[in-house]
Each structure stands twice: as structure tokens, then as C-alpha cells.
């Protein structure tokens, strides 16, 4: 006869699981929490990014209204308004609406913040806009019921009437019918608030005035920054674009909704992906902790599982048991993580904004956008991390020979078994190779794969590494019994040590890698700030500028040793890339390094060709090299320029181009400069110099110029740097806390599993305090091995972050700097935590009766 094959007993599974969880709720909770934290971080970052992206898209839609197509100027200088009639008559165009677009600010005087902020001021022709972009027509408070579509309120013809978006109205602190003062292009004008742009996104600050007023009052006569276009019915968009392109000057570009979306996406893609990857790394750490918890649980229950096998539970039943346990831990953790992530996202959006301190969407608080698919994906990821973490322990449980395992009532480690290194070495080698592969779609995916493989390799190599590190300590017996016992134990059971270290090595190495990368970047930024801001005092004006006569006057002011004037303005090289910054300043074409922090070789421009120097991100983003030529759209024409070198820049991630001031003025006719940096004469304080210079400025300009001490600027820049890495620091801290929780849980489990051993030691005369000392020594040694492994692995991973992930994501490089103080604190904390948790767990294990401990079978 043969026995009947029956489905797995759910009752048996449930009894075993509930019993285990009831017996060790802390361990299960730690594993679930680890998954929850990973899922929460990932989901929160995703929600925040999604909400910020949505806000950005809404903002773009609001500013661009609902035009089918737009023509934008390459720089804020605008293009000649003669382009407007030419485009309006182009084939396939039903209507065109000219637009003046300026950055503006409420009130008089300089901005209170270094970053500026403010609102977008649009000048429109109401009759034209009614046909192309009706949403830009304000809805007056008096006639609020009549909506915007097609209706042109009378107030828009009033040259001093202004319509504000709800956010701008709130920021102004005014109501419809009241007056508001605006400063733009160096001029301050008061308007009457005539209406509200009710269809603007909730956070976007926009103001709309009459185009003639904008041109007249803000010095933009004859210039436009934008033309909005509506296609004729049935027109072929591609054909229309081709026809328009033929009519465009070099300093104008066609912009579509798609290219705008791409531009917004490109602006923040690397930052978003990096944060999501960090969150996934946290999830990976969670997976390691589940592995750690499940491995210990399986090791401890080996005889129980053997009994079940003897009593008739099939191999797959045992596999299912451990797997289902992992799945439930993962499922509970993932659900908890989703709820936690939602809370974190809400809180972060409220307190940090949509860019998590990254500085991309400054000043906005996006509405939270929740979609079910990402929630499902992060749930599955959490579940998968737990299942993968349970896979090896489950297989080990199912593989064990029940007859032997049933007899295994003690520690069955074979000290003579040599731990294999090839798995770990193989993964580490694969990780190293992956680091050399190029970016995919501008993202360092292989860089992250490399880090993941290194992490897995480092953890897989732990038994071997623990044996290697402890071997030198093993020599002849010392007089200190407890230390000898501790070393022999760890040396003889490196696999168990590795399980304990798994979570901590994962989280420590990630933390070390991030800390090295951040320290390197911060150090490089600090050096760069010293290069770029060597002077004592800076001053700038947001709009308008200093003409040559005024510059000469300021340069000759008493107390001023030397002065460097410059101007920065955005330039669009491609419609689907964020604009780069043109940095206009005196640069010696023979010695550019005098004024710019150059990297690598420089090249001399041929006679008659204008040299420019590209920032490192610009060179990487646009794939340009020293000695090449490129087209720069400036001043109504396109100029061929020569790339004379690459300079380091950490401020402008979208790239920057430096150009000598004389060349810029020659190409554009613009001889105004907006910023200046001063070296002060010995004994002159910044405050004295500020007073002197302000007195020299003409009255309208004097009210708008901002003065900064360079020292303050550096401090502010580093403060901004730190705030942009706030989330990174938070992730690091969480990773290390989760790792330490894992160590505590692991030590506790391993120590409790050795109750019998301690009972035996007490029987043969080892004092309770000696057992405690032995455990403390074991914990400290384990912590030390964790520190060495975590540091080594973290340093290797940091090199991938520094030399692969950062250049591929953010297009900048840096020199490695080691935060030795942090390493020392980390080492002390881990060794202390190892010893401390081992002792705490030991106190519990030793609290029972030694005789009973030895007699006990389970």
C-alpha cells in the first residue's frame, strides 16, 4: 500500500507560526519593522516625487496656458517682436498671442532671500490671448460668475490692472480691488488687483498684465520672451513646426507640451532616482534583517522542524512553513510601511516641500497625489524582500536530514569546516565589473546594481572574512579564559557570526558609503566655494544692472581693493533640457584658471573665435569636450564659440557656460552686469564698504541692490547643502538604527539558543560574571568584525557613488574625503552596541537555573 498524498495542513502551519510568533514577538516585530521602514521610505519618496512632479507639470501648464505650441526666447533678453507677425501668418497657425515674461517680486527693495523667489509676470494682449490662452485672462471679483473661457473682462484693458493666481494673491496679502506693488527688471510699479487666475495651479505664483504696459514700464520695448500659438483646424503639427522653424531666429526655440514635460523631468530625474534607490537600499537592508531573523529562527527550530519531518511533514511543507512565515512578516511590514510612508509623505510635503530639501521646487507645497499602482509595487517589493530573505533559511530547513537534526540538541557547528569565499568574491567581482558599465537613459543603473552586488558579496563573504579576521587572535591560550572562549566560539562558528552581522554590515556599509560620498562632496563644495567666492563682499541686483560708467565709479570707491563684475542669465540650448546658466565675467583667455576652478587641460581658442568654458555638468550633459566648437544662441544670432576648458561647478546642476564679459557685450550689445565681488582694502569692514557703495549707487538701483558678506554666502551655501542632504542623513540614521535593532535581535536569539552551553559552563565552575564577560567579549569582537567589514565594503561602495553614480547622475566629480571622526564614532558605537546587547541578552539567558538549562532539551 502507499500513503495518500494530501494538501499541506493549514492547521499545522498555523499552529507552528502562531506558536513561534507568540514565543518571540520581538524578533518578528523587528523583521516586520525593517521591511516597513524600507517600504515606508520608498513609498514616501515616490509619493513626494510624484506629487512634486504633478505640481511642476501643473505649474508648466498654468504658465503656458493651453497653447498648442510656443516659441520661447533662448535667454531672458527675449527676441525681436517682429517675429510675432511672421509667425501669426505662418501656414497652419490659426491664432498667435505675444507674451512678455519676466521674473518679478512683490514690494520694493531687494529680495530678502538669497535664492530670490518671487513670481512670474506675464504681459499679454487680451484679445489675442482670448483666442489662444483664455486661462490667462483673469476673472474679476465683481463678475466672478462669468468664468474665463472666451470672455474678456474690461479690466484687462486697464494698463494698471493686474490679475493674480490664487497663490500670488495670497503671497501679496491683498484682495481684489486693492493695489499691489511689483518690482521687475529693476523697476517698481503699483497695480490694481482686478481679478484672479482661477485656473492656475494651487502653488504657482503668476501675475498677468497688459503686454504694452509690461513692455513700457519694465524696459522691454520691442522684445518678447514668448509667442503662444494655436493650430488651424486639421493642421499637421509636424508640418507646422517645420514651417515655423524656418522663420525662427537663433535665439528662439519651439517648445511643445512634451518638451516642457521632458525638461521638468530631466531637471529632477537624477535626484529623484537617487532618492528612490536609497530607499530601495533601505528595503534591501530590511531584506537582510529578515534573512538574519529567519536564519536564526530556523537554526533554533532545527530539531522542531526535524520532529515535524519525522512525524510526516513533507519537505515542501517545511519550505512552505518558513516561506509563509516570511511572507506574512513581509506582508504585515509592507502594509505598515505603506501607511507609514503615507504619513511621512504628508509630513515631508508639509515641512520640507516637494523637493525634500533638494532645492528644485523651492517655495511650493504640492498636494499629495496617491495612485494605487505605486502602492501595489512597493507592497510587492516589501513582500519580495521578505521572501528572498526567507528563501535561503527555508531551503536550509527543508534540506536538513531529520534523523540527524532531531538528535541535534546543541550547537552543531563544525569548527574545522572552512567557510567558502567564492560566492562572496564572485559577487564582489561582478559588482566591480558593473561599476564600469555606462549609464542607461542618463541614470546610473549599473552603478546601483554594482552597489547591490557588492553588498550581497560582502555579506556572502562574511563567514570567510570573520574566520580570516579572527584567526590571528587564536594563538596559544591566554590567561583570560573568557576571551579565549569568546574567540574560539566566534572562530568556530563563523556562519553564525555572519548571520548576526548580516544586517549590521549591510546598514553600516551603506552608511559609510553615503557618509564618504557626502563628506567628499561637501569638502569639494567647500573648496570650490573658496575658489569661486574668494572676495570679501558681494552685491547684486536681480533686474536691471550696473552700466560701465557706474562700474568704474564703484571700482574706484574708497576701501575697494579690487572688484569683479559679472552677470548670469539662463540660456536654452535645447527645448527639452533645463536652461543652463551663462556666466559672464572677465576671463583671461590665456589664463582662465585665474577666474575659474578649471579641471584638466585647457585649449587656446583660434583667433577670431570666441572662447567659452563649460562647467563639468554642462560638458557631461551635452557631451562636449575641450577644443570642440558649439553654437550659442545669443543676441538675436547664433555664435560659434570654442570650448576652452572645463571648470568645476556644484551650484548649477543643469550646467553653466562661462564667457568673458567683453565677448558677451560684443555679441549681445548688453553691457549691464548684475553681480559684483569685492576685495576690500586692509582695515575696511564689509559694513563700511556697503555704506560707501550704497551711497554711490543711483537712487532707484540703491534700493534694490543686495549686499552679502562672502563669509555669510559660504555659510549659507553649506547650509543649503546640508539641508539638501537632510533626507540622506535621515535615511542613514534610520539604516543604522535598523541595523542595530537587527544586531540586538540577533544577539538575543543566539544567546538564548546557547542557554544549555551557559548551564554547562556554570556547572564546570565558570562564574556568572565570567560568562557575562565572555558574552561581552564576543559581542565586542563581533562588533569589531562588523566595523571592519562595514568600513571596507562601505569604502568600496563609496567609490562607486563618487566615481560612477555622481558623475552619471549629477555630472560632477569630486575627490574622496574620509570622515574619520564619524568612522571612529561608528566603530565605538558598534563595538559598544555589540557588547551591550550581548550582555543584555546574556542576563536573560542566565536568569534561569543552570541545572535545568543543561537538562532541558529544547
Amino acid at each position, binding site marked *: 500500500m502507499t*500513503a495518500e498524498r494530501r494538501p499541506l495542513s493549514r492547521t499545522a502551519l498555523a499552529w507552528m507560526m502562531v506558536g513561534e510568533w507568540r514565543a518571540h514577538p520581538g524578533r518578528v516585530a523587528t523583521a516586520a519593522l525593517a521591511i516597513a521602514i524600507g517600504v515606508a521610505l520608498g513609498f514616501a519618496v515616490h509619493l513626494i516625487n510624484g506629487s512634486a512632479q504633478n505640481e511642476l507639470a501643473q505649474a508648466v501648464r498654468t504658465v503656458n496656458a493651453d497653447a498648442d505650441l510656443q516659441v520661447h526666447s533662448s535667454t531672458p533678453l527675449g527676441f525681436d517682436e517682429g517675429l510675432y507677425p511672421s509667425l501669426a501668418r505662418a501656414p497652419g497657425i490659426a491664432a498667435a498671442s505675444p507674451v512678455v515674461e519676466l521674473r518679478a517680486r512683490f514690494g520694493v527693495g531687494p529680495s530678502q532671500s538669497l535664492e530670490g523667489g518671487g513670481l512670474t509676470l506675464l504681459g499679454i494682449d487680451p484679445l489675442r490671448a482670448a483666442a489662444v490662452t483664455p486661462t490667462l485672462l483673469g476673472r474679476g471679483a465683481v463678475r466672478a460668475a462669468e468664468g474665463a473661457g472666451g470672455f474678456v473682462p474690461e479690466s484687462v484693458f486697464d494698463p494698471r490692472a493686474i490679475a493674480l493666481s490664487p497663490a500670488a494673491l495670497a503671497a501679496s496679502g491683498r484682495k481684489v480691488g486693492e493695489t499691489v506693488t511689483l518690482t521687475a527688471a529693476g523697476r517698481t510699479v503699483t497695480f490694481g488687483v482686478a481679478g484672479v487666475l482661477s485656473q492656475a495651479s494651487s502653488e504657482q505664483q503668476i501675475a498677468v498684465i497688459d503686454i504694452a504696459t509690461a513692455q513700457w514700464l519694465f524696459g522691454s520695448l520691442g522684445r518678447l520672451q514668448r509667442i503662444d500659438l494655436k493650430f488651424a483646424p486639421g493642421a499637421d503639427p509636424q508640418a507646422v513646426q517645420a514651417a515655423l522653424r524656418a522663420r525662427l531666429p537663433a535665439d528662439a526655440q519651439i517648445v511643445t507640451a512634451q518638451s516642457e514635460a521632458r525638461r521638468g523631468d530631466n531637471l529632477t530625474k537624477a535626484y529623484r532616482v537617487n532618492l528612490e534607490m536609497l530607499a530601495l537600499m533601505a528595503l534591501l537592508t530590511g531584506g537582510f534583517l529578515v534573512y538574519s531573523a529567519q536564519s536564526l529562527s530556523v537554526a533554533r527550530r532545527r530539531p522542531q522542524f526535524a520532529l515535524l519531518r519525522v512525524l510526516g511533514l513533507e519537505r515542501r511543507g517545511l519550505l512552505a512553513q518558513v516561506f509563509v512565515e516570511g511572507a506574512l512578516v513581509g506582508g504585515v511590514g509592507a502594509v505598515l510601511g505603506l501607511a507609514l510612508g503615507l504619513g511621512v509623505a504628508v509630513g515631508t510635503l508639509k515641512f520640507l516641500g516637494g523637493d525634500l530639501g533638494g532645492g528644485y521646487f523651492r517655495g511650493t507645497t504640492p498636494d499629495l497625489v496617491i495612485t494605487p499602482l505605486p502602492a501595489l509595487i512597493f507592497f510587492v517589493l516589501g513582500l519580495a524582500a521578505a521572501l528572498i530573505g526567507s528563501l535561503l533559511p527555508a531551503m536550509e530547513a527543508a534540506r536538513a536530514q531529520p534523523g540527524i537534526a532531531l538528535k541535534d540538541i546543541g550547537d552543531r557547528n563544525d569548527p574545522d569546516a572552512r567557510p567558502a569565499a567564492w560566492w562572496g568574491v564572485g559577487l564582489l567581482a561582478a559588482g566591480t565589473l558593473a561599476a564600469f558599465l555606462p549609464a542607461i537613459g542618463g541614470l546610473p543603473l549599473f552603478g546601483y546594481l554594482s552597489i547591490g552586488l557588492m553588498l550581497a558579496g560582502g555579506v556572502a563573504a562574511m563567514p570567510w572574512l570573520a574566520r580570516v579576521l579572527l584567526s590571528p587572535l587564536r594563538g596559544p591560550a591566554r590567561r583570560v579564559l573568557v576571551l579565549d572562549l569568546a574567540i574560539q566560539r566566534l572562530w568556530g562558528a563563523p556562519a553564525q557570526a555572519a548571520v548576526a552581522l548580516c544586517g549590521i554590515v549591510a546598514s553600516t556599509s551603506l552608511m559609510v558609503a553615503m557618509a564618504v560620498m557626502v563628506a567628499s562632496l561637501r569638502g569639494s563644495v567647500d573648496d570650490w566655494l573658496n575658489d569661486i567666492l574668494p572676495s570679501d563682499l558681494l552685491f547684486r541686483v536681480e533686474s536691471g544692472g550696473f552700466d560701465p560708467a557706474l562700474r568704474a565709479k564703484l571700482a574706484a570707491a574708497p576701501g575697494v581693493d579690487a572688484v569683479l563684475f559679472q552677470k548670469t542669465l539662463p540660456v536654452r540650448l535645447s527645448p527639452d533640457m533645463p536652461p543652463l546658466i551663462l556666466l559672464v565675467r572677465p576671463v583671461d583667455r590665456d589664463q582662465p584658471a585665474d577666474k575659474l576652478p578649471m579641471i584638466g587641460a585647457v585649449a587656446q581658442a583660434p583667433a577670431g573665435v570666441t572662447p567659452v568654458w563649460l562647467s563639468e555638468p554642462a560638458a557631461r550633459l551635452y557631451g562636449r569636450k575641450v577644443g570642440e566648437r558649439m553654437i550659442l544662441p545669443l543676441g538675436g544670432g547664433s555664435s560659434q564659440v570654442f570650448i576652452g576648458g572645463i571648470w568645476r561647478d556644484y551650484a548649477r546642476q543643469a550646467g553653466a557656460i562661462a564667457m568673458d564679459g567683453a565677448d558677451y557685450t560684443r555679441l549681445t550689445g548688453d553691457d549691464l552686469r548684475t553681480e559684483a565681488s569685492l576685495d576690500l582694502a586692509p582695515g575696511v569692514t564689509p559694513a563700511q564698504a556697503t555704506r560707501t557703495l550704497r551711497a554711490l549707487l543711483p537712487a532707484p538701483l540703491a534700493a534694490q541692490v543686495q549686499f552679502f558678506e562672502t563669509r555669510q554666502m559660504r555659510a549659507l551655501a553649506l547650509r543649503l547643502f546640508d539641508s539638501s542632504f537632510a533626507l540622506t542623513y535621515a535615511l542613514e540614521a534610520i539604516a543604522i538604527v535598523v541595523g542595530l535593532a537587527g544586531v540586538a535581535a540577533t544577539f538575543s536569539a543566539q544567546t538564548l539558543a546557547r542557554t544549555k552551553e551557559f548551564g554547562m559552563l556554570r556547572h564546570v565552575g565558570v562564574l556568572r560574571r565570567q560568562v557575562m564577560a565572555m558574552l561581552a567579549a564576543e559581542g565586542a569582537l563581533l562588533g569589531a568584525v562588523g566595523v571592519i567589514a562595514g568600513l571596507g565594503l562601505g569604502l568600496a561602495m563609496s567609490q562607486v557613488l563618487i566615481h560612477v553614480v555622481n558623475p552619471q547622475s549629477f555630472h560632477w566629480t569630486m575627490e574622496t574625503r574620509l570622515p574619520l571622526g564619524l568612522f571612529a564614532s561608528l566603530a565605538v558605537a558598534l563595538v559598544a552596541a555589540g557588547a551591550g546587547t550581548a550582555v543584555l541578552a546574556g542576563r536573560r539567558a542566565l536568569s534561569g537555573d543552570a541545572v535545568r538549562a543543561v537538562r532541558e532539551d529544547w
Partner: protein
Amino acid sequence: MSASSPVLSLTALRKSVPGGRVLFEGLDLQVAPGEIVAVMGESGVGKSTLLNLIAGLDQADGGQVAIDGTALQSLDDDGRTRLRRDRIGFVFQAFHLLPHLTLAQNVALPLVLQSVEAGEATRRATALLDAIGLTRRANDRPAQLSGGELQRVALARALVHRPALVLADEPTGNLDPETAARILDLFVAQVRGFGAAAILVTHSERAAAVADRSLTLTREGLVAHHDG
């Protein structure tokens, strides 16, 4: 299968340990339904290994093990596991009760592994606990019991699913003589009451005395045991 067919049949069984030392070879044994056979022998002679071979937990180097006419060698691991689940009960020297389950759940475990509904399994287990003198202890956990009580529970677990064969490995090895005697009496009464056959591995002459047959395991196989 006729009524007189042996529950257990061992034919020319051979087993060696890693390193090549032969534990036994040419071992033959037939156990009839309801028969209790004691197996004695020195430490390390392979008594527990013999039980493992009978249970399909270990593989013989040669020969055949058949339970109720089914040769274990013809079954894969799952097949042997299912045979164990349905036809064999186990009693161990170290009791091997699961500490986080109640006594009733421990006893009911073989039934729930056979997919008997949990309520029914627990009811049958509780009834058996009553029968072996552990009335009203069904919801206690193993940590609350003495050694003798633990072995009673283990005995109940070995019989609850009405196995054809009970394998007992030193069931009184951890107990004092008085408790051991009571457990042996209970063991014999219950095994006979359930109509099962049993192999009782023991060092104890007193334990062996309760069996129908007493054999000694030697390198040449099982030989009839003689006192002294």
C-alpha cells in the same frame, strides 16, 4: 494483504557509517501486527540507526525495509514521509514536544498533518490525554509538566493517528525507575489497545522484559537476547 502479513519486514539489511565501519549486515526481521519487539545492544552498535532506517529517515547500504508490504526503497522522500505520517508513531527518549504548542496540540499534530480538521483532531487528542491520566491538562504547555508526564504526552502523540507500527527509542532513558516502570506499563497497554506493533529500543533489561520478543543487535544482525 492478509491478516498474518508482517507489519515490518527487514531483509538482508546492511548499514555502514562514514569511514566504512559496518554497523550491521544481513539483518532480517519480521514483526507481526500487534507484536512488541525489544531491541537491545551496546552503545554505538546502531540501534537508533536501525530505527531511522525503518522510519525511512536514513538509507540502508543494502537490503530492504518494507512497511505493510511497501518497500521503502521504492518510495521517494515525499512517499516515505507520507508513509511515516500515516503508518508510524514515534516515542523518543528526549520526548520532543513542541514547547509553544499546548499538550492537546502536540498530541493532535500527527492528525493535523493528515489534514484532519483542527477541532476534531484536538477532540481526539484530548480524549487520549484523558485516557493516559492527563485529564484537564490539554491546554497546558510542556514546560509545566514533569518528565514522566511529558513521556505520556509523547506516547499519546505516537498513537493518536492509530499507526500500524510504533518506534520507541529509549522511551524511559530520561526517567527514574519508578516512573519508567509506570510509563512502560502504559506503553504496552496503549500499544496493545490500539492493536499496533512496536519496536522498543532500550538498554534496560526491565524495559525489554515487557516485549513479546527481545533481540540483541550485533554486527551480524539481530539475535535472540539472553539475560546476563
